């Protein structure tokens, strides 16, 4: 008997399978010099490495948010434990009060008063004023100390963040100096003058910025709602952070679905030609000629009907939302594999006429062996570039689809749902901008980091841009 019951949702399982796959791939690449070389090229680019660090922060939050569990109800009998229907994650446990400290309705970022005036009872005298928040700024005696308190928290957070970053960089520097058999001072000189061979200074700066941002946020969030609260009084920072997982899942799992289809069909069409090529080309022209949003809409409506007519299959609301998220990934994958497939078809068409492939064929090497040894390794860079380039587009597409009403489940935290729920609030007076602003800012950060990283990967892997290596 335990206090919690682990819950593995479908997307959780796939996310961790993906992590395992990527880890395996990294270990494989590390052992092969020719595979390592282009990645070393990525590692030399300051822009790519800086954004990789930002992406890593997002991924850590997303992974923490993928460890789901259900709490045991406190008054259930020990021999027959009952669990809450609410599915929480390790991330929820970590940020604790952020989730539970709910206000009444809207409040502005860092505010100590509610957004709307209410009748408040002051010892029998009823006054119409902005009531104090239950949690935001509750530690303050009066509004006079408000800004001083915020400035104090920001300064404290900055100093602590900087200190932590310096400590981290110092330890890492010591480790690097030992590895390269230099004295500490020598290594720091090389590091300081930027002759390291990899963008050490950029990484250190980014590390410091991230550490400061996290420390400041922690200090502020302990006393305020940093990004305000939404209509039902929930902390917007919490919602935005929870939405990270949704964005990452859509960006990665969709490509995971796309990949086998695109690779198998694209290479098969280019290599075997003849009727195989005709059939595959026919299939992807048909799929391509249907406007993507409409195909996704049709399929999502069908999934919705299925979920509604089979409620017994899903025991919690989270499981229901999760299956819809997975279905969305599958559907988006089914509609978006055609681009990569066409690219791979063209490339393998070219490759299959090259001398060494002809020679292999003349020696009687089997098709599967030629495909595995000669064709696939030579188109792999295209696959990789497509994965990283597609990611940001998929994250942005989620918001649009949620607006159309065929995105993720309305109960799921996602930037698209945040935007959809808040876009009419701009008409209010005074304007409620923080929910929209937060969703756009988080989405922008993730997509920009992904785009810059993707550019770095493309520069390093695309042989047509060979001059820069």
């Amino acid at each position, binding site marked *: 008997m335990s206090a919690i019951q682990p819950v593995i949702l479908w997307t959780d399982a796939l996310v961790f399978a993906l992590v395992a796959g990527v880890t395996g791939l990294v270990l494989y690449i590390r052992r092969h010099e020719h595979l390592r070389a282009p990645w070393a090229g990525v590692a030399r680019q300051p822009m790519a490495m800086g954004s990789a660090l930002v992406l890593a922060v997002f991924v850590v939050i997303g992974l923490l948010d993928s460890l789901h569990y259900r709490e045991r109800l406190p008054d259930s009998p020990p021999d027959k434990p009952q669990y809450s229907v609410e599915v929480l994650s390790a991330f929820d446990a970590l940020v604790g009060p952020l989730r539970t400290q709910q206000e009444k309705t809207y409040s502005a970022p860092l505010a100590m008063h509610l957004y709307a005036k209410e009748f408040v009872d002051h010892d029998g005298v009823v006054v119409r004023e902005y009531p104090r928040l239950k949690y935001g700024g509750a530690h303050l005696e009066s509004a006079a100390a408000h800004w001083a308190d915020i400035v104090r928290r920001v300064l404290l957070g900055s100093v602590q963040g900087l200190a932590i970053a310096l400590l981290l960089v110092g330890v890492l520097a010591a480790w690097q100096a030992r590895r390269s058999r230099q004295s500490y001072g020598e290594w720091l000189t090389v590091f300081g003058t930027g002759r390291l061979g990899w963008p050490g200074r950029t990484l250190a700066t980014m590390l410091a910025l991230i550490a400061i941002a996290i420390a400041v946020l922690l200090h502020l969030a302990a006393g305020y709602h940093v990004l305000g609260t939404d209509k039902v009084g929930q902390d917007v920072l919490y919602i935005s952070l929870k939405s990270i997982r949704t964005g990452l899942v859509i960006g990665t799992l969709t490509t995971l679905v796309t990949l086998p289809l695109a690779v198998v069909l694209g290479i098969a069409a280019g290599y075997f030609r003849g009727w195989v090529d005709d059939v595959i080309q026919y299939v992807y022209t048909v799929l391509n000629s249907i*406007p993507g949003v*409409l195909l996704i809409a049709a399929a999502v409506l069908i999934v919705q009907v299925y979920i509604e007519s089979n409620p017994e299959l899903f025991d919690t609301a989270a499981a229901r939302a999760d299956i819809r998220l997975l279905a969305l990934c599958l559907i988006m994958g089914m509609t978006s594999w055609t681009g990569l497939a066409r690219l791979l078809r063209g490339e393998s068409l070219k490759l299959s006429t090259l001398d060494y492939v002809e020679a292999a064929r003349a020696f009687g090497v089997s098709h599967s062996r030629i495909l595995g040894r000669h064709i696939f390794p030579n188109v792999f860079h295209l696959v990789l570039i497509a994965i990283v380039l597609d990611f940001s587009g998929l994250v942005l597409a989620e918001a649009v689809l949620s607006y159309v009403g065929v995105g993720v489940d309305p109960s799921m935290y996602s930037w698209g749902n945040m935007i959809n729920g808040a876009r009419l609030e701009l008409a209010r007076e005074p304007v409620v901008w923080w929910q929209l602003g937060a969703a756009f800012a988080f989405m922008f950060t993730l997509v*920009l980091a992904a785009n810059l990283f993707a550019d770095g990967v493309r520069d390093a892997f695309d042989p047509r841009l060979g001059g820069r290596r």
Partner: protein
Amino acid sequence: MFAYLLRRVLYAIPILIGVNLLTFTLFFVVNTPDDMARLQLGAKHVTPEAIERWKVEHGYDKPLLLNRDAQGSAQFTDTIFFKHSAAMFAFEFGKGDDGRDIGNEIVTRMGPSLAIALPVFAIGLLVNISFALLMVFFRSTYLDLWGVVLCVVLMSISGLFYIIAGQFFIAKLWNLLPISGFADGLDAFKFVLLPVLVGVVSGIGSGSRWYRTIFLEEIGKDYVRTARAKGLSEVRVLFRHVLKNGLIPILTGAVVVLPLLFMGSLIVESFFGIPGLGSYTIDAIQAQDFSVVRAMVFLGAVLYIVGLILTDLSYAWADPRVRLQ
């Protein structure tokens, strides 16, 4: 030339049949008319009689593919497939859930859609090419580098942000243009301005970066070096040679979307209240009006295939090395 065109048009037919079969499967086989009726009626009103009535009203009370009760050719024609899917080849889309003829709606809504989509397309192309040329002119300087970074930043902003920010700042805060709406004739101008502006700005990032790569690829070629060796100025090289040759892939790439402009833009139209095909589609999706969605799928497929054929023709027209056989 004519034979080629004919073959391409004939090749379009199996593709349209494929699209038709796929939509038929999605809308009638996987998702049966009973499911649709249940979804439409809502949980409270679901009774077998209500479902039956809904199906009769919408003409979904027939067998899917083969009607055994009918006589002669009616065995095939008096079915859902023939009445609702095959009829689309004759552009007979039937009626939407609001009782209006879909074909009529499409014809009247094309105008407003084009009023937004065409200027966005044309101005966008012009602006993107100009930006791309500017970056190419200052290539490998800081101006070019920051231009590319700016492009990536613009690309990373959600399209919804451009719309919401445009409506909020330009229309609401500064009162320069109406927030949304549409009017006939010349009055439409002030309503069209903001959506077009938003459409153009949201496309600048990806568009000009893409064109910049095309121009840079051109600029490395031999004929450009020859032109410079002749002593032509950089501006002249850029405009007379690079621009002209770079335009071939740009314009032929743009041709494929030309017919799809009729469909309008889903999001922009729905935000700005333009009574075009895009907002029609969105409304249909949100109201789960399947007959409209089906019609739009078919229309989109037809226009896409027209675009493909036009692309082939434009290649042959723009580049004398391409022969159509």
